[in-house]
């Protein structure tokens, strides 16, 4: 337990001193600002465009509500996750390439401690950064408009968070298999892309974790929350299994 704590402390120290935390926080704050901004200024831009058009084609933009901002949130979430994964995908592989784990492991540190610690750090960062972004978007929307137009907001937010958790756990699995972070990104991205493609098929689609990407019907109140439950169960199972399977693989990895 003590070694887990100290390894985790080292991970956070590394994140702070390499400015990764600052970059991540900056990016997630930026997304929180962009969401309402795009919603707010889209009609203005459209109006300007229509005015500049000769012949006077009349375009009337509908009234902007918090709903537009939340749709932006759902649209921008993949970008946020990609940035997160790009920054974090080398959390294991950098240690293999540099050889820094050799000394820590030959000191008797258990390999699963390293694995649990790194997974924990990534999940903590994702949770903190993501919900900060959600909270700020919520705050801005409340100031500019009224959040009550959208339904099931927390559920929508949880959906994307779970998908992020799954991506992180998959990246752990690929990190104990692969030697460099390109393969980690390719593996994680490949599984998600695969799920997305299979998701376009009619019946199976409801069971694919990538269903959680499309929360638009939920906030419009057009879809029941229960519709997403199988996909959530599958996403959580994939996450747990990925981490559990990683342990024996990591124990036998050449370092």
């Amino acid at each position, binding site marked *: 337990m*003590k*070694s887990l704590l100290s390894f985790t402390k080292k991970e956070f120290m590394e994140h702070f001193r390499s400015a990764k935390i600052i970059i991540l926080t900056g990016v997630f704050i930026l997304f929180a600002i962009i969401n309402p901004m795009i919603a707010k200024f889209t009609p203005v831009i459209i109006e300007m465009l229509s005015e500049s058009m000769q012949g006077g084609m009349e375009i009337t933009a509908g009234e902007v509500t918090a709903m537009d901002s939340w749709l932006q949130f759902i649209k921008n979430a993949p970008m946020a996750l990609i940035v997160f994964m790009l920054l974090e995908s080398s959390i294991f592989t950098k240690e293999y390439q540099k050889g820094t784990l050799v*000394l*820590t492991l*030959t000191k008797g540190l*258990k390999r699963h401690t390293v694995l649990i610690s790194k997974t924990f750090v990534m999940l903590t960062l994702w949770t903190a950064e993501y919900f900060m972004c959600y909270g700020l978007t919520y705050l801005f929307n409340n100031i500019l408009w009224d959040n009550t137009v959208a339904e099931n907001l927390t559920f929508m937010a949880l959906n994307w968070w779970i998908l992020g958790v799954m991506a992180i756990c998959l990246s752990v699995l690929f990190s104990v298999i692969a030697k460099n972070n390109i393969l980690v990104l390719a593996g994680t991205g490949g599984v998600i892309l695969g799920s997305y493609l299979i998701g376009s098929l009619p019946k199976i689609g409801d069971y694919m974790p990538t269903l959680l990407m499309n929360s638009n019907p939920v906030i419009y109140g057009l879809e029941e929350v229960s519709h997403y439950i199988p996909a959530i169960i599958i996403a959580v199972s994939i996450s747990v299994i990925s981490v559990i399977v990683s342990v024996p693989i990591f124990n*036998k990895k050449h370092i």
Partner: protein
Amino acid sequence: MDMLKIENLKKRFGDKEVLKELSLTVPEKSIFGFIGKNGAGKTTTMKTILGLMKPDEGEIFVNGEKVVFGQTSTNQYIGYLPDVPEYYSFMSPTEYLHFCGEITGLSKAERTKRADELLELVGLKGETHRIKGFSRGMKQRLGIAQALLNKPKLLICDEPTSALDPVGRKEILDILMAVKNETTVLFSTHILSDVEKICTDIAFLNEGTVAIQGKIGDIKSTYRTDEYIIETETEKELRVLTSAFTHLNQTGRTMLKFKENQHSLFEVMNFITDKKLPVLKIERVEPTLESMFMEVVKK
């Protein structure tokens, strides 16, 4: 008791057989020089001892306990310094030693005490800069400090002096000498003068097997060949000697070499005294590690 025992270790990379039935015993409290050319299999052997590499065949015991590949409990007895040690370079040396102390379960008081002692020992006390900017020698010294942190029973150093300048090398050798009462030291090298300076035991690794091993004194005596050198003052005396003794080999302008079974030493000495020949020296040839190494490698 043997601190380390390796039995019939085999390892192959592709079609290259790096270790061929390597067996080795390192006695407790020895400074063991593990000698071999580049590519002889020294690093492979060391990585296998640490469970970082899986052998194809063979067994290794550290402090009587069997080493398993991957997660191995035998590492608790070992302090390891790799050939190119890599640290978390965003830390200072004190932070790094504290981190190492924490993961090995030392208490805070112990950590502080050990870190202070060891940084003093390796000459890095008061160094507050991050490891990022360290020279090779500094990294190597920090490497020894981290390896000794939890008072290991076996200290394994992979070519600790190879990349260092003479001052850096001397520092490392002095440190290894200083810790010999606390721990068994196994270090690999191809610098024979280092071995001669500090080792009690040696093993020559050649083409994947141990060619010779044992106490350095014992090995030297088996390689001792009863060979003598005579250095005369001028060439004139040399000619007098060679005309009297047919088996004297001239090896230099005034240098002669012979073996006891060719001519008896006393016979030659008697002749020298009878003829009152001025000589500079008569010397028995001691086998050097270099000559032994060359002989082993040539076989």
